């Protein structure tokens, strides 16, 4: 009665426990205890089999020593009766001595009999319950039934508990994946995403170690990007390449892998002896668009039984991780592009507001040196001949280098010199970027290793500055460490180089124009001062000349009384020379005004015949002295001309007085005019000495006087024809001379006709 009551209360307890959704280990523990009580036994042992391999998984016991538990659990196949394993029938063992394992247990625990009862569910063996009795126990057979009853109860409970824990884990996995997706979506940073994935995975699998390794496409090494549970030293020691170790196997084959007994698997052999112990390992490949980019691994110091279920879950997580990594990579790429664009934009922006060349040079060097985190930077400019590179600007943290660079200001491009064998010279010659990732390994620039050691750089890149076709200089960036230029960086440097080159050329052009403008202004100023000076001097000369000439002419005209012949002759000489002086002053003033652009013409519609007549009238006396006849032949249809009356008179006066001067006595000077197109052509023809062919072009140059005795002995300033030419050109016309030596000369000039002026 007492027993029955106890049995019932225990059964109640069990069913209560079962309805409370217990964890499988708790349940197994409770059942083991209950089995001892139900069987009125001295000890009991319960194992729940793994569904996949049938091995006992969750073992629990009551009143057994740890040695015995291990013995039973580790050697199930050695002692489990065939009837239990194969047929699912309970077995009663009254003699434990028949089996080696059970004999050890019996001896250790002082037991003599046992009942082994299968735990089944849906006709499948899900566990084994063993109950042990000591030598004092009686009527063992009586106690077997309650034990079987318990075992029958336990089967569904274990199945339920297992399903429940499975469901829980699934729920947890879904939650984890949801978490991961959400958190990854919220942050584009790769390291954050990877940490989230690993934390969730560790929680999910109950593991304490995990790594995410990515394949370095250059070295094929599996580089640890995130880890949990490993010391830095261990990670540094365990360097894996694709194909090495379990992780390397996964990377190579793109398949997941479970190594529950890692140490005994040859694929796991990469761990050094003293590394943190890894008992079990589970890895899944990170696959992006069919390509394995890395491996997600979970491992544990404790022995673990990773299941296929776990594997498929890990694959799901790995998929998420791969997406996160890919997203992060894309994000990084975009961010980098953006920062590159920013580099270029800021460079262009700053250059746009820089006007002088030195500032532009310094700006380019500083900007690109800092953007690329260079140790040193220099910008050298090519000289006009393209033979030398001259330092333009230097970037450096230390003043010493700047000093040094300025000392070595010039660098020849001659291949025979050190400069000619430099990367900079190479970039100029080849007209492309010269990137030296390690100067100590690059044979081409062996001569520069000494320099590299002295300056403390290992790699450098030289960008030729080519605005359109011809290089104008080269930008060099020097890096302390060996550095291989990434394609994007290469592109960026190329674009930056072009931007800088164009801006630089513009600044140089601006500077040249500015210089020219300054020079032009200075020249203008000088010319203005000269004109002012000449104008002032000519006025100052004119005042005394007015008095001299006036009084001399007064005396010569006889107003002060009769002159004797010598007085008349000498005063005549004074008078003539005064005339010459006046003419010289006038010519100088004219030429300086013309050349300074200060001579303003006042155009009118003029009757050419009238103008010619007036000038001839004035020259009559001069012609009469030599008995020269002046003929004027103006064609009827000759229109009025557009001219400054005073200056047109000067042109005619100059040409006609020259003709008189250089014509022999009693000869004829002829003036003709006739319309030609929209112009009037005026000719002054003499029968004088003529002009040598080689001198014809020079007679219009100022201060030029023909190498001819007559010309030399005839007075002239050498400015008359130059002024005449200027005046004709200022009227929009042309002047030229035709001449035969000894046959006279014909000076012709054109002058614009006034349109539609009938007469």
């Amino acid at each position: 009665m007492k027993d029955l009551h106890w049995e019932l209360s225990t059964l109640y307890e069990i069913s209560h426990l079962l309805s409370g959704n217990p964890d499988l280990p708790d349940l197994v523990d409770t059942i083991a205890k209950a089995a001892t009580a139900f069987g009125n036994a001295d000890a009991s042992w319960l194992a729940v089999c793994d569904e996949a391999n049938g091995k006992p998984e969750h073992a629990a016991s009551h009143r057994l020593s740890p040695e015995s538990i291990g013995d039973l659990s580790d050697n199930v196949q050695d002692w489990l009766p065939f009837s239990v394993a194969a047929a699912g029938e309970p077995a009663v063992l009254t003699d434990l001595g028949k089996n080696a394992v059970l004999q050890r247990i019996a001896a250790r625990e002082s037991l003599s009999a046992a009942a082994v009862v299968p735990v089944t569910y849906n006709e499948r063996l899900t566990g084994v319950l063993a109950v042990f009795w000591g030598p004092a126990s009686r009527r063992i057979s009586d106690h077997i039934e309650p034990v079987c009853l318990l075992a029958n109860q336990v089967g569904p409970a274990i199945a339920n508990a297992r399903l429940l824990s499975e469901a829980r884990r699934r729920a947890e996995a879904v939650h984890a994946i949801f978490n991961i997706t959400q958190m990854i979506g919220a942050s584009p940073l790769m390291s954050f995403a990877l940490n989230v994935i690993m934390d969730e995975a560790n929680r999910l699998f109950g593991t304490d170690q995990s790594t995410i390794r990515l394949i370095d496409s250059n070295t094929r090494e599996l580089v640890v990007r995130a880890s949990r549970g490993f010391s830095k030293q261990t990670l540094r020691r365990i360097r894996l390449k694709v194909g090495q170790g379990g992780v390397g196997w996964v990377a190579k084959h793109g398949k997941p892998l479970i190594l529950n007994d890692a140490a005994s698997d040859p694929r796991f052999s990469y761990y050094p002896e003293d590394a943190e112990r890894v008992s079990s390992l589970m890895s899944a490949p990170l696959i992006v668009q069919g390509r394995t980019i890395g491996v997600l691994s979970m491992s544990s110091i404790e022995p673990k039984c990773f299941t296929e279920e776990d594997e498929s879950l890990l694959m799901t997580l790995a998929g998420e991780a791969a997406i996160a990594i890919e997203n992060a990579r894309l994000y990084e790429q975009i961010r980098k592009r953006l920062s590159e664009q920013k580099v270029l934009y800021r460079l262009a922006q700053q250059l746009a507001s820089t006007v002088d060349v030195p500032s532009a040079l310094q700006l380019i060097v500083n900007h690109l040196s800092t953007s690329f985190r260079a140790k040193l930077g220099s910008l050298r400019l090519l000289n006009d001949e393209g033979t030398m590179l001259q330092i333009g600007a230097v970037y450096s943290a230390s003043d010493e280098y700047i000093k040094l660079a300025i000392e070595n200001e010039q660098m020849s491009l001659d291949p025979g010199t050190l400069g000619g064998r430099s990367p900079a010279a190479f970039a100029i010659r080849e007209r492309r970027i010269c990137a030296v990732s390690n100067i100590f390994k690059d044979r081409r620039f062996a001569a520069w290793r000494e320099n590299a050691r002295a300056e403390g750089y290992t790699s450098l890149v030289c960008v030729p500055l080519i605005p359109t076709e011809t290089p104008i200089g080269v930008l060099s960036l020097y890096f302390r460490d060996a550095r291989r230029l990434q394609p994007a960086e290469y592109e960026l440097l190329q674009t930056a180089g072009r931007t800088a080159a164009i801006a630089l050329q513009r600044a140089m052009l601006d500077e040249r124009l500015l210089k020219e403008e300054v020079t032009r202004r200075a020249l203008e100023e000088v010319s203005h001062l000269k004109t002012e000076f000449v104008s002032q001097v000519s006025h100052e000369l004119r005042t005394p000349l007015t008095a001299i000439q006036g009084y001399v002419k007064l005396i010569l005209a006889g107003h002060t009384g009769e002159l004797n012949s010598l007085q008349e002759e000498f005063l005549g000489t004074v008078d003539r020379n005064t005339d010459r002086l006046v003419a010289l002053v006038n010519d100088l003033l004219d030429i300086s005004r013309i050349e300074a652009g200060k001579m303003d013409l006042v155009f009118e519609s003029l009757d050419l015949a009238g103008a010619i007549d007036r000038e001839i009238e004035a020259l009559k006396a001069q012609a009469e002295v030599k008995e020269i006849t002046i003929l004027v032949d103006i064609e009827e249809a000759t229109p009025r001309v557009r001219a400054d009356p005073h200056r047109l008179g000067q042109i005619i006066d100059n040409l006609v007085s020259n003709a008189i001067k250089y014509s022999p006595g009693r000869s004829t000077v002829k003036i003709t005019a006739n319309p030609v197109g929209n112009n009037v052509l005026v000719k002054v023809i003499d029968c004088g000495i003529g002009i040598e062919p080689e001198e014809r072009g020079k007679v219009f140059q100022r201060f030029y006087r023909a190498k001819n005795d007559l010309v030399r002995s005839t007075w002239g300033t050498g400015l008359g024809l130059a002024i005449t030419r200027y005046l004709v050109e200022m009227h929009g016309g042309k002047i030229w001379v035709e001449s035969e030596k000894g046959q006279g000369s014909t000076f012709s000039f054109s002058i614009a006709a006034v349109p539609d002026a009938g007469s």
Partner: protein
Amino acid sequence: MVKILVVDDEEDVIRLLEFRLAKEGFEVISCADGPAALTLADQEKPDLVILDIMMPLMDGMEVLRQIRSRRATSRIPVIMLTARTASTAVDEARQLWVSDYMMKPFDPEKLVLKVKKALKIPVE
């Protein structure tokens, strides 16, 4: 008697013109600056003014403008003495109605011809 006012800051030029014009039987009055010229022109009502352009205090162009702007003197013929290349000044003077101009240095005989022409005195 025909009265001629000569205005020039150079004493030598005034003396030259006084001498030569007196030979022609003209009465010559003179002064060396613009303000004095305007006073004399007002008081003496000359028949002709010979006026130098480049003068201190007030230049000949300004004197000419003032002579033309006063009713009493507005119709007096004026001959300007000018630097040869001051063509703009000549142009301006023409607009203010000058009888003639003479470029310095000048031949006194030619000036006499111009004076007679301006005074409409026939030349023999």
